[in-house]
């Protein structure tokens, strides 16, 4: 019957169900007869459990075909032609990749018996020069990995994610990739960016069991994608299907490493023996999907609830960190007809944390509560206006709130910071309310054009996004009951200032006063994007040609535009299918990748600052507190080196405007921040499903914004030449795709990440807990005019320059150019699993890191913090670290598709304790171990699947 139906196929290619989108892939092939001649007019039908109906095409005169917009996963492809035996192939489709099917039809007098081809199809997409790693559900569910998409990306070559080099300690879920910092990544869920507009970190979690595939681009991002100088993670969640499916699972995860280790206690000022981190996590996960109406209406839903209790090393065991969190996802897909699909999905996530501060410096009464809420809505329309074109419209809204408030709930009780130990008592210092949103949509159109100087797949699109953030901070602490607010007092017992809590606070060393002076901070960014790309196939050569044009407008001061920039980004590549069978690929790719300045950038120079910050210190000679520092953005603003901002200041304060123009001329008007990258690679499938590759990567990042002190009165945000990053690497990869038995993903990356700043511009370089040093501001804040500098020394103000490290020239006298904190020369990653015929699966993950860079930081008296790099940036390297995790699981078949899987994962099996963060400030604690590898832990799971 099916063959009869195929004979009724229209004469031109057509597709059903779904059309081209960021979360889909494609299938292409070439049909030859047994004399190696092209077969025109052959019928192609693609079917699969998550394909509604059939996706249909027909070969052209060259015998080639292409089916766009295929959901990732395992499908079957049937090839028919009158006079030949039908042939059926198993095709695995990966997100944003084109799976190649070489077909050789056998002549038959009649329709003949269907030939099922068991031979594996090529795994290399020889039409693209971009580098991405596809983490299929088969891979991520069979390996010992954390149950989050963030953890899973750690196995991708070029991703440095095991250590949080920003704050110290184990990964915080925002890795550094290809020499870019933790803020250079973009996180898409079903084609929609969920990146936090303020922090530029991942914005939403996803139910792990709802993930169908994760695609991680590390190089050569096509023009369709942006907002990433590091990696772009494209998480594709499961959709409904014509058959019911689902799972119910419980996981218990607990520490399994009794004992102690030596770790720095900053209150003691030395390494002390501490119990290893003790924790217990529970997780319940439910998924369900299927047809409401077959081939017309599908549903998918997932719920995940978790509860964690963690006793961090330095915390009071009676007041552990506890978290109650959950995520929910719901999807409805309506196939209106063969050409039109509509889909709505909603996601919700929450996290409630008690005893949020884990450093051990916060007394129980000074602890904080953390609450986050995320709500995501995505509406997708897909339409095929003609047989060779597709149109997709996506509208989405993402809203999130993060509140960090005192556990005490008290507004009037002040917090007291102990200057001897850093300990905080009394109360938490503020109620911090944050709201963020991303609203907008995209319209993308795909057109296939054949036989015009080769075959083309054009894709053109526009996007418009509104990114908003709002923050309200209410500082706690009254001097006395009912008298003012926003006071934090300073204790210095060693100096005779006990600062008695609950007293009159006249025995304190000093205090900080925050006063609210304006409305809660809020910023808006409007992002407009247009892109055009053409995958132009000329025989074995495919040119990937694209350009992406982005415009970002940032608003502050109730509507003032302070930044309005256009950024054209070419994306060019060439992929050569050397052997013509999609098994040997030589590629080169070069492109420019812009990132948004982002909402925090608008906050940076906001003159409506929500508070004025003042510091007072006790003067024994007068018995009174004297103000020693004031930070008031209304009187000391940052001026953006943009025409809009300079014109604003010309009107507000012409003298300031004139000085700011001088400064901007010296340091450069703001330009969009970008990375330029070139990648050359070769990849060869040496055995079925088994490919090896090597690539060389060279990139540089420039035009990173920086605040520069021009003359101690005027500060500007400009593009100093000396703020830059360089990266180069040689990377070897081995990948074995899953065949139901075994799979592997391994890589060796030899790389060098250097620069004068690891981040963008959001965070200060000081701080004891990490290897950051984000700004080069201190270096550039140095007085760099030789004559002026001489005056400082001659008039007795040399101390103001001490510790600033140099003349602030691009020659880097100050040693600010060096190895960045996430730099590691050698990283080896091996992950794989084996499934025995009787249903037992063993998985393992190993990672070797030769040690990331760190450095000594020196005190800069002017700022009262450790901002200097006396030995140069990245002058030291951490010890090498090995990570080894194991998994064993057995699946009990219950009949039909039903099964129960019992699993045990062991993380850090050998319970290795290598230091991963040293204390960097130049005082007696320098070089002591702040964090070690996470101790051994075990996760047990029970999962029912149907």
């Amino acid at each position: 019957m099916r063959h009869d139906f195929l004979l009724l196929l229209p004469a031109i290619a057509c597709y059903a169900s779904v059309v081209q989108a960021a979360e889909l892939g494609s299938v292409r092939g070439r049909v030859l007869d047994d004399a190696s001649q092209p077969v025109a007019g052959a019928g192609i039908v693609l079917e699969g459990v998550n394909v509604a109906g059939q996706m249909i095409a027909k070969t052209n005169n060259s015998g080639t075909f292409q089916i766009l917009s295929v959901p990732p996963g395992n499908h079957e492809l049937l090839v028919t032609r009158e006079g030949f035996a039908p042939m059926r192939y198993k095709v695995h489709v990966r997100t944003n990749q084109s799976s190649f099917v070489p077909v050789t039809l056998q002549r038959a007098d009649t329709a003949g018996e269907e030939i099922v081809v068991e031979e594996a199809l090529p795994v290399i997409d020889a039409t693209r020069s971009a580098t991405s790693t596809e983490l299929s559900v088969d891979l991520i569910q069979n390996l010992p990995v954390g149950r989050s998409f963030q953890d899973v990306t750690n196995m991708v070559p070029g991703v440095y994610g095991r250590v949080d080099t920003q704050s110290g300690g184990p990964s915080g879920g925002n890795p550094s990739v290809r020499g870019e910092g933790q803020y250079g990544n973009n996180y898409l869920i079903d084609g929609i960016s969920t990146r936090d507009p303020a922090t530029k970190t991942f914005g939403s979690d996803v139910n792990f069991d709802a993930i169908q595939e994760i695609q991680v681009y590390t190089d050569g991002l096509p023009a369709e994608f942006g907002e990433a100088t590091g990696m772009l993670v494209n998480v594709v969640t499961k959709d409904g299907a014509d058959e019911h499916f689902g799972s119910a699972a419980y996981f218990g995860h607990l520490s399994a490493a009794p004992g102690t280790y030596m770790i720095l206690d900053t209150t003691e000022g030395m390494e002390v023996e501490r119990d290893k981190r003790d924790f217990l996590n529970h997780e319940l996960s439910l998924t369900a999907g299927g047809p409401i109406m077959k081939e017309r209406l599908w549903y998918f839903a997932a719920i995940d609830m978790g509860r964690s209790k963690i006793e961090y090393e330095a915390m009071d065991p009676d007041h552990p960190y506890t978290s109650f969190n959950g995520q929910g996802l719901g999807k409805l897909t309506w196939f209106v007809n063969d050409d039109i699909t509509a889909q709505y999905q909603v996601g919700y996530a929450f996290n409630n944390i008690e005893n949020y501060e884990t450093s051990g410096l916060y007394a129980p009464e000074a602890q904080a509560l953390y609450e986050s809420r995320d709500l995501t809505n995505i509406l997708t329309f897909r339409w095929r206006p003609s047989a060779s074109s597709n149109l997709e419209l996506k509208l989405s809204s993402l809203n999130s709130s993060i509140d960090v408030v005192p556990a005490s709930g008290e507004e009037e009780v002040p917090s007291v910071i102990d200057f001897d130990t850093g300990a905080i008592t009394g109360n938490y210092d503020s109620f911090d309310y944050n709201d963020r949103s991303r609203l907008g949509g995209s319209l993308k159109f795909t057109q296939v054009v054949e036989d015009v100087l080769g075959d083309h797949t054009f894709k053109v699109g526009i996007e418009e996004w509104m990114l908003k953030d709002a923050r309200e901070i209410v500082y706690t602490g009254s001097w006395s009951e009912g008298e003012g607010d926003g006071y934090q007092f300073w204790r210095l017992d060693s100096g005779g200032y006990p600062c008695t809590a609950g007293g009159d606070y006249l025995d304190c060393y000093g205090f900080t006063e925050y006063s609210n002076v304006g409305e809660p901070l809020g910023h808006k960014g409007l992002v407009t994007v247009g892109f055009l790309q053409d995958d132009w196939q000329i025989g074995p050569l495919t040119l990937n040609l694209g350009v992406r044009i982005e415009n970002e407008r940032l608003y502050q001061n109730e509507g003032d535009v302070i930044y309005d920039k256009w950024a054209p980004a070419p994306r060019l590549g060439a992929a050569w299918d050397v052997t013509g069978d999609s098994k040997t690929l030589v590629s080169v790719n070069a492109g420019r990748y812009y990132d948004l300045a982002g909402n925090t950038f608008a906050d940076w120079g906001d003159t409506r600052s929500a508070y004025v910050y003042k510091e007072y210190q006790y003067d024994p000679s007068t018995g009174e507190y004297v103000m020693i520092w004031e930070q008031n953005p209304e009187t000391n603003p940052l001026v953006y080196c943009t025409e809009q901002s300079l014109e604003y200041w010309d009107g507000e304060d012409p003298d300031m405007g004139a000085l700011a123009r001088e400064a901007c001329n010296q340091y450069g008007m703001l330009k969009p921040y970008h990375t330029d990258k070139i990648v050359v690679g070769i990849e060869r499938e040496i055995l079925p499903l088994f490919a090896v590759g090597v690539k060389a990567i060279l990139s540089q990042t420039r035009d990173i914004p920086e605040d520069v002190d021009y003359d101690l009165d005027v500060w500007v945000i400009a593009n100093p030449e000396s703020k830059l990053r360089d990266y180069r690497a040689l990377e070897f990869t081995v990948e074995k795709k899953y065949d139901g038995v075994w799979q592997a993903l391994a890589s060796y990356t030899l790389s060098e990440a250097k620069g004068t700043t690891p981040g963008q511009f959001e965070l200060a370089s000081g701080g004891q807990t990490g290897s950051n040093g984000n700004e080069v501001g201190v270096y550039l804040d140095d007085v760099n005019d030789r004559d002026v500098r001489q005056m400082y020394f001659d008039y007795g103000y040399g101390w103001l320059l001490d510790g600033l490290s140099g003349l602030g020239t691009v020659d880097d006298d100050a040693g600010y150019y060096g190895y960045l904190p996430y730099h590691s020369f050698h990283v080896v990653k091996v992950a794989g699993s084996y499934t025995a015929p009787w249903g037992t699966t063993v998985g393992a993950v190993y990672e070797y890191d030769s040690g990331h860079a760190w450095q000594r930081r020196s005190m800069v008296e002017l700022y009262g913090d450790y901002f200097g790099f006396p030995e140069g940036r990245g002058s030291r390297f951490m010890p090498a670290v090995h990570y080894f995790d194991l998994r064993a699981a057995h699946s009990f078949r219950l009949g039909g598709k039903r099964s129960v899987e019992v699993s045990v994962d062991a993380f850090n099996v050998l319970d290795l304790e290598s230091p991963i963060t040293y204390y960097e400030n130049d005082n007696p604690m320098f070089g002591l171990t702040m964090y070690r590898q996470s101790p051994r832990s075990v996760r047990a799971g029970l999962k029912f699947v149907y």
Partner: protein
Amino acid sequence: MRILRIGIPLLCLFQLSCDPLGFRAVSISPIYGWVDGCIDVQVSGHGFDDDVSGKVGGLALENVVLPDPETQKLDVGFTFWARVPANPTQEAGFADLEVTSGGETDSVVDAFYFVACPATGYEEYLSTDTATEGDTITLYGCGIDASAHKVRVGPSKPVDLTSVCGTSQVSFTAPNPGEAGTWYVGIFDASGKTQIYPDPACDISVPYGAVDTGITDTAEGDSCAGVPTLTYGGAR
């Protein structure tokens, strides 16, 4: 050695991971000091061998001290301590830092500044701000000639000075100022009667009590600002 220096980077693709840091001078702290010298400094960078030495403005650093491999192992190869000698020209100005180690030399342009001495017998600070009679006190400053100058603490009798290092560090034995209190420390000529520093407008004995200093003006304005004091008798 030459073969290794050329060959190892060539063997390493892109020269990656081969002697990644090497030798480099980065900073000197503090970044300025009197032309009189005797400035204790810390020179930092990386790749310092045991034979490391340095110069500031072409003047060899004295008293080079290397980190103790047992107790200061984190400093080994990264730093050394030394003393900047007096600038023989006595001219203020920028000076380059030059560090030599393992046969290589690296320099940091204008890394240090020689500051001219603002006055003869200029006092900057004392080794302590409290004293009892008989304590040895070190006075830091510049232009203090131990053989030609004496010191008085408030109304005390003049006491002799001993050079600790050139004319920028001298020591004296705390004299008896007559009564407890906080007293200015002044530099006098060899007779002990003519106040050289601070300016005579700052009567070092005022306001704590008159004594036969030969000075008739009283302290006013800022002329006493910054002059070091010693407190006797535990008063604050």
